[in-house]
């Protein structure tokens, strides 16, 4: 005998998505256009329009500014140059545009959400399970509805990327704020700080290393989504990986794969270097208290 009751949410969910598409499809296309025209396309045009040599110089300067080491900067530039040698420069710029826009959106959503969770226990209790779902739900489960709502192309790719990549930023923002030394916040309160002053003057600066670590993770995860995003029509390096798989052209796939890895390393080194310069300051913070009496 079958002990399982026959429960299925397939039909109602399908109906809900259908009505969503038919009723809000048009207004969602406005969102679509806004993201494309206002965000992705201008950045893509800018990145692809900039001559490669200038781009390499800019990357080099950024890398030097972040790491303060000539050798590191040179290595980062060499990695980018190698991607160009593979003939993938244009695709690289498209991928970079996608990652940048996704990351910007993720910061726009993730930072305030992380702050909210750190300040309100209710928000924390409500949102943490949502984050768990976002991180564990297989990507395709929300990729397909996103395509149905926004059509094939870059926008559903960006949205799916944001859903996937925003979680570490939210978590690490919250963690960073929660880990601020309670004696420092208490001292701030004792001087008549408002909540806003505490957040801006104390909590956010002290949480910055953690927030930067979250940002680093977000960029890395956004990059990891590039291949999957290419399945729904986002252009870029993932496209070549996909084409390589589909035509059994292992070399082509590997080449594009290596390019993605190199880009990941480049972005990782630069964002980590920015996080660490702050971290050094905070590692040595005034923690050596006597601690004779804790209240």
């Amino acid at each position: 005998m079958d002990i399982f009751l026959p429960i299925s949410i397939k039909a109602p969910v399908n109906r809900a998505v259908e009505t969503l598409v038919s009723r809000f499809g048009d207004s969602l296309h406005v969102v679509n256009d806004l993201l494309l025209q206002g965000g992705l396309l201008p950045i893509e045009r800018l990145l692809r329009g900039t001559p490669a040599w200038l781009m390499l110089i800019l990357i080099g300067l950024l890398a030097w500014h972040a790491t303060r080491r000539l050798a590191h900067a040179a290595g980062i530039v060499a990695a980018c140059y190698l991607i160009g040698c593979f003939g993938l420069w244009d695709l690289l710029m498209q991928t970079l545009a996608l990652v940048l826009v996704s990351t910007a959106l993720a910061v726009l959503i993730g930072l305030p959400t992380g702050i909210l969770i750190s300040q309100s226990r209710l928000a924390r209790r409500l949102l943490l399970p949502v984050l768990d779902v976002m991180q564990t739900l297989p990507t395709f489960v929300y990729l397909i509805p996103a395509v149905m709502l926004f059509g094939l192309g870059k926008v559903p790719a960006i949205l799916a990327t944001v859903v996937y990549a925003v979680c570490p930023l939210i978590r690490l923002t919250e963690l960073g704020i929660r880990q601020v030394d309670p004696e420092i916040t208490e001292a701030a309160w004792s001087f008549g700080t408002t909540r806003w002053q505490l957040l801006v003057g104390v909590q956010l600066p002290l949480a910055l290393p953690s927030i930067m670590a979250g940002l680093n993770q977000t960029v890395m995860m956004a990059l990891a989504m590039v291949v999957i995003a290419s399945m729904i029509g986002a252009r870029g390096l993932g496209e070549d990986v996909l084409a390589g798989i589909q035509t059994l052209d292992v070399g082509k796939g590997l080449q594009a794969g290596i390019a993605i890895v190199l880009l990941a390393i480049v972005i990782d080194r630069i964002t980590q270097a920015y996080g660490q310069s702050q971290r050094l300051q905070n590692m040595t913070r005034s923690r050596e208290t006597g601690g004779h009496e804790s209240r």
Partner: protein
Amino acid sequence: MNPVEIPPPPRLEARHISKIYGIAAQRALQLLRSGADKATVQAETGCQVGLHDVSLAIAAGHTHVIMGLSGSGKSTLVRHFNRLIDPSDGDILLDGQNILSLDAAGLRDLRRRRISMVFQGFGLLPHETVQGNVAYGLLTRGEKKATVLDKARRWIDRVGLTGYHDRHPHELSGGMRQRVGLARALAMETDILLMDEPFSALDPLTRRDMQQLLIDLQAELQKTIVFITHDLAEAFRLGQRIAMLRDGQLVQDAPPEEIRHAPADDYVARFVATLG
């Protein structure tokens, strides 16, 4: 024409302060009032008694030391005076006015203009310079940046940190950090200063220097200081009056000589014995 000298009214006063930690605080309070002791209350209600019926008057311009062992409630008590902790029962008066009735804005104003505080672990902002730390409270209460930096520099000089205004806290020794903490509190120019074991984390020599610094400053500034310590030598050196706390209750509140010659009980006597 009254021949009897009327003592000055206290600047700060705690009246019958009790602090209970736990959800059944009301029931715990009732038990305490009916004469139950700490252990009974904890067994019956699950509540921790932080303070029980403490009344203390702090005279203007005096250094009033609050002493006790770890867990005696002295750090809890001092936090009631600027309401970092709110009491479960009792009143806190500042110049005769009950500060428990203040709303959020009133409380901020109290902390910005009347009472400042120095912490055992310094509580400095690691990402700010010495000058930024000293200026913190002034900026918080909305003073102009130009005048603030000037004021901060003066107080940095006053506590003996001339030339260190650009440094970050992690570049300083413990004693220097607490000088920053002291300058930050003094820069507020409040008439009341709360000091929660400010020198306990320092080595004995540095501690002596800091005590001397405080004595010198106090001779000039005449602030009302509530000073927490577990070191009776420090209490004798700094205090005009010493309050002894034990298990959240006030055991004795008297001038140093009286503590020395007429300890109220065994607990106080044992403290005095450590002086040799």
